């Protein structure tokens, strides 16, 4: 009986880990082709709690980041940061990303 419980526990843990995901946030902003604009936006976002793996695609005008595990970044905070940088956010979308291992999770921009 104990063996069965252990096996079930291991299976449940594995399934949970397999489905564990972080949310990737994609923010579309006009005018990011200017480096002062792009890095200014970056400067505002790195101060937000819960933001990691911040990247800016200057050509496409898209800022992306992942939410730290267990944390959520509100749309209000996102829009506020974009406005503080002098922009108007056009579109905010979300995609799921599988939680990476420790090495990748700690990668900074």
């Amino acid at each position, binding site marked *: 009986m104990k063996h069965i419980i252990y096996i079930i526990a291991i299976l449940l843990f594995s399934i949970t880990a397999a489905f564990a995901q972080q949310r990737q946030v994609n923010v579309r902003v006009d005018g990011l082709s*200017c*480096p*002062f604009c792009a890095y*200014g936006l*970056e400067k505002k976002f790195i101060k937000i709690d819960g933001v990691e793996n911040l990247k800016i695609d200057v050509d496409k005008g898209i800022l992306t980041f992942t939410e730290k595990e267990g944390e959520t970044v509100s749309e209000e905070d996102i829009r506020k940061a974009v406005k503080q940088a002098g922009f108007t956010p056009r579109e905010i979308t979300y995609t799921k990303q599988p939680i990476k291992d420790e090495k990748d999770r700690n990668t900074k921009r």
Partner: protein
Amino acid sequence: MKYHAYNIIISIVLLILLIGCSPKLKWRFSKEIPLGEISPIGIVYEDDGFWLSDAERNRILKVNFDGVIQEEYKGFHRPMHISGDDSSKIYIPEFLIDNIKVISKGRVKNIVLLEKPDAPAAIDVENDLIAVADFYNHRIILQENDTITILGTEGHGNGKLYYPTDVEIKGSLIYVADAYNNRVQVFDKQGDFIRNIGEMDSINVASGIYVSNTHVYVTDFYGNRLLVYDFGGNLIQELNEHLNKPTDVIVSEQSLYITNYGGNTIVIYKR
């Protein structure tokens, strides 16, 4: 006799016009130096090459006149418009962390600012005077020993700045690339407004400036141009060959060097 004098006057006038329009005084495209994966923002000229800031890769580079990297300093935090002095020091504003660093004899050191900027976009140094373009505070910070003078406040009128991205000390005046007011503004060292330059020339983000002994040079980022003005603000020449999102400019003798952020090149004009 009258006819002879008339001919002399006409000849003198024609000679003056000819000199004024002489091709020797006009800048002409010479060549383009490819920089590979360097996305240049700021440039400093030296006799054996250029110092460049590469904000995308957080580094400062020394390249030769073929664009080949000679020295590399990594670990900066979005270095923007850099500046050099006569002792070969390179001053670097770190846009992301509101810091100023200096490279001197191969070593990187911090410079203490008494007034903290919010995103320093440019720096210029002349003797004990430091000028910093404070991007998000829409102002220029002048620091001379322990004395701080602030130039400009946020806005669009005379004496107001809107996201300044470059600054140059020239004599008793301070020239500012007032980027998102699409012009250059000139102040004295006490902070008084002197004049605007380029306001009527449809500049689309005045990203960088250089001031020589005779002219003011302004890069027009989205207009893909370089505009040359005299000190009265009169447009002398407009350059647009091979320019792709230019961010900075410097003149040395008969050569003019422009950083192409959009094209990863340095464009050279000569006269």
